[in-house]
C-alpha cells in the first residue's frame, strides 16, 4: 500500500524533531530513511506507525487518512531496533501473538507460525525463548512476528544496527530477497549509507528534521542536491567550496596535465587503495585507486605524483 506523509511536524519540548516533512512511498517499494542520529528519521517512522502523534500534518496509508487512528488499526508491522521480544513467551507465541489477540483458532495460528518460521529460517526453534536466541535470530523472529498479521506496510527501525558486521551483511541481503518475495511496502531507518544504498530502491536523506533529498541510490550519488547529501552519501574531499569524490581523482606518474602532489600516506584496504595527498599549495585530499593502479604507479610515501582533478561540484550556499 502506498504511504503518504504530508507536512508533518513534531516537537519534543524544545527540540524540533520534524519540520513540515512530506514523503511519498509507492506501493510495494523498499525505501530507506537515511540520516545521522537526531535527524528525525526514527520519529518519522514512528509517526507513520502511529506510535507517535504528529503536532501538525497528515499520514495517509493507501489514500486513507490514518493520522488519528491508533497503531493497532493501521495494518503496519513494526520491527524495533532492539527487537522488543516478548521475553516470557516462546518463539512460537511471540510470532503468533498478533493472531492470538485477534482470537484466531489455535490450528490456524500453528500453521501460520510454522510457515513464517520457515520463511525466516527459524524452523525447529519454536519452543525456545528469546533469551536462547542470537541477535540475528531474535531479529528474524521480530520480523516474522510483524509479518504474521499480514501488514500492509512493514516498518523497520535500524533493523541491523545492533548486529555484528557479518550477520548484518547477511541479513541485508536476506531482507532484500524477502522483499522480492512478499512485496510488502517497506520503509527502514538507517544511519548507514552503504546499507541504504545496498538494500533500498529509494532513499530519503534526512537531516535536522528536514528532508534533504530523495531518489534512487544512483540518482543521489550522481546528482546530490546539496553539500549534505554529497558528503553523507559516499566519501568526499572538500577543497574550499568544491567537493570531489576520491575515486574521481586521477593519479599519473608523468609530469604535466595536472597539479603536483606529495604522497603522505598509503592505506591498503584490499582491492581499494587510499592515497593521502598534499597539493603544492598545502591543501590536503585523498584519492581512491585500485590496487592495480597503485602497483603500476608504485605509489609510496614521500613520492611526488601528478594529480588530475575532475570538475568539482560546487553547491550554492544553502540559506
Amino acid at each position, binding site marked *: 500500500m502506498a504511504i503518504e506523509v504530508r507536512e508533518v511536524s513534531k516537537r519534543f519540548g524544545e527540540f524540533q524533531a520534524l519540520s513540515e516533512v512530506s514523503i511519498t512511498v509507492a506501493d510495494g517499494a523498499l525505501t530507506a530513511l537515511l540520516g545521522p542520529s537526531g535527524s528525525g528519521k526514527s520519529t518519522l517512522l514512528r509517526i507513520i506507525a502511529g506510535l507517535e502523534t504528529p503536532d501538525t500534518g497528515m499520514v495517509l496509508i493507501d489514500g486513507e487518512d490514518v493520522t488519528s487512528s491508533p497503531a*493497532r488499526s493501521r495494518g503496519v*508491522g513494526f520491527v524495533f531496533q532492539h527487537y522488543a521480544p516478548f521475553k516470557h*513467551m516462546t518463539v512460537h507465541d511471540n510470532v503468533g501473538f*498478533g493472531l492470538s489477540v485477534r482470537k484466531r483458532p489455535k490450528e490456524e495460528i500453528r500453521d501460520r507460525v510454522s510457515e513464517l518460521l520457515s520463511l525466516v529460517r527459524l524452523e525447529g526453534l519454536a519452543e525456545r525463548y528469546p533469551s536462547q536466541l542470537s541477535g540475528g535470530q531474535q531479529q528474524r523472529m521480530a520480523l516474522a512476528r510483524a509479518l504474521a498479521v499480514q501488514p500492509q506496510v512493514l516498518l523497520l527501525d535500524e533493523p541491523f544496527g545492533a548486529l555484528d558486521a557479518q550477520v548484518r551483511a547477511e541479513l541485508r541481503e536476506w531482507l532484500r530477497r524477502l522483499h522480492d518475495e512478499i512485496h510488502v511496502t517497506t520503509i527502514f531507518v538507517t544511519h548507514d549509507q552503504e546499507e541504504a544504498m545496498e538494500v533500498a530502491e529509494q532513499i530519503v536523506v534526512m537531516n535536522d528534521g528536514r528532508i534533504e533529498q530523495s531518489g534512487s541510490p544512483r540518482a543521489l550519488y550522481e546528482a546530490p542536491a546539496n553539500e549534505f547529501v554529497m558528503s553523507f552519501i559516499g566519501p568526499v574531499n572538500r577543497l574550499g567550496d568544491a567537493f570531489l569524490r576520491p575515486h574521481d581523482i586521477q593519479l599519473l606518474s608523468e609530469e604535466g596535465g595536472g597539479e603536483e602532489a606529495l604522497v603522505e600516506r598509503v592505506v591498503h584496504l584490499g582491492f581499494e587503495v587510499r592515497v593521502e595527498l598534499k597539493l603544492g599549495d598545502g591543501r590536503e585530499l585523498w584519492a581512491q585507486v585500485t590496487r592495480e593502479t597503485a602497483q603500476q604507479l608504485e605509489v609510496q610515501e614521500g613520492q611526488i605524483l601528478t594529480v588530475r582533478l575532475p570538475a568539482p561540484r560546487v553547491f550554492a550556499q544553502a540559506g
Partner: protein
Amino acid sequence: MSSSSGGTLTVGAKPSGRLTRRGRARGGEATTLGSSRGGRLALRTVALGYLAVLLGAPLVMIFYRTFEHGLAPVWNAVTAPNALHAMWLSLEIVLIVVPLNTIFGIGAAILLERGRMPGRTLFGLLIDMPFAISPVVVGLALVLVYGRAGWFGDELAAQGINIIFSVPGMVLATALVTLPFVVRETIPVLREMGTDSEQAAETLGARPWQTFWRITLPGIRWGVGYGVVLTTARALGEFGAVSIVSGRIEGQTQTLPLYVQDRFENFDTTGAYTAAVMLAVLALITLLAMNLLARRANKKGGR
C-alpha cells in the same frame, strides 16, 4: 537462607539484583571487592556473622524457649481459642489487604512511571509517606478521622458502621502502612522493561487491556511478586497502627502480634513464644511460596 549457586533465586532477592550478579560473574576481569578468593571469604564471613547476630540468634532463642518444655504446652497454646482467633484474624486482614494493595500498587506504579499527569512527584511522595510516618501516628490519624469524636465517626456510628475498634479499621490501618511496597518494587522493573514490547504488542493489534494482561503484567511479575511478599510479611507483623485502631479486644480484634504482646504482658511466656513462632512460620510459608513460584517460572525459561 542464602544460596551459593548463582542459578537459583535467593529468598527475597530482587530480580534486578539477580541480573547484575550474573553480569558481574561473566565479566570477571574487573577487580571488585570480593573478586579475589580471600576477599570473598572475608565478605561472606562478615555478612553471615552479621545475619547470625541480628537474625539467627533471636530466632533460635524463640524457637528454643517455645519448645523448651516439650510439645504439649505448645499444642495447648496454639489451640487456645484466642490464639486461633488471632491467627485467623491476621490471615483475614492479609487476604483483604494484599489484593487491594497489589491492584492499587500496579496501577500507581504504571501511572507514576508511564503517565504524564501533573503532580506526579507529589503523588509519589504521598505514596512514600507510610514509610516515613510511624505506624502509631497512622493509627492515631485513623482514629481522628473515623473514631467516635472524628470527622465521620458520628455519622458512621449512626448508620451502624463501626470502623474504629473493629476489623474494618484494622484493615484500613494495615493497608495504609503497607501501601508503598508493591508500588516501589514495581516501578524499577517497569522502567527496566521499557515501552518497546508494549508498543510492539500495540502494532500487532493488541488492545490496551490485552497488552496489559499479556505483556506488561508478565513483564513486571517479579517486582510485583516481591512487593506482594513484603506486603504480606508486613501486614502479618503490623503492630503499631493496628494496636491503636483495634482497641485490642481479646478474642475479637486481636491479631497475632497483638496477641503476642497480650500474652507477654500477662506473664504467659509459652503463649507469647508460641504465637511468635506461629507468626514466624506464616512468614516463612510466604517466602517459600514465593521462592517456589520463582523457581517454577525460571524453569519455564523467560527470565
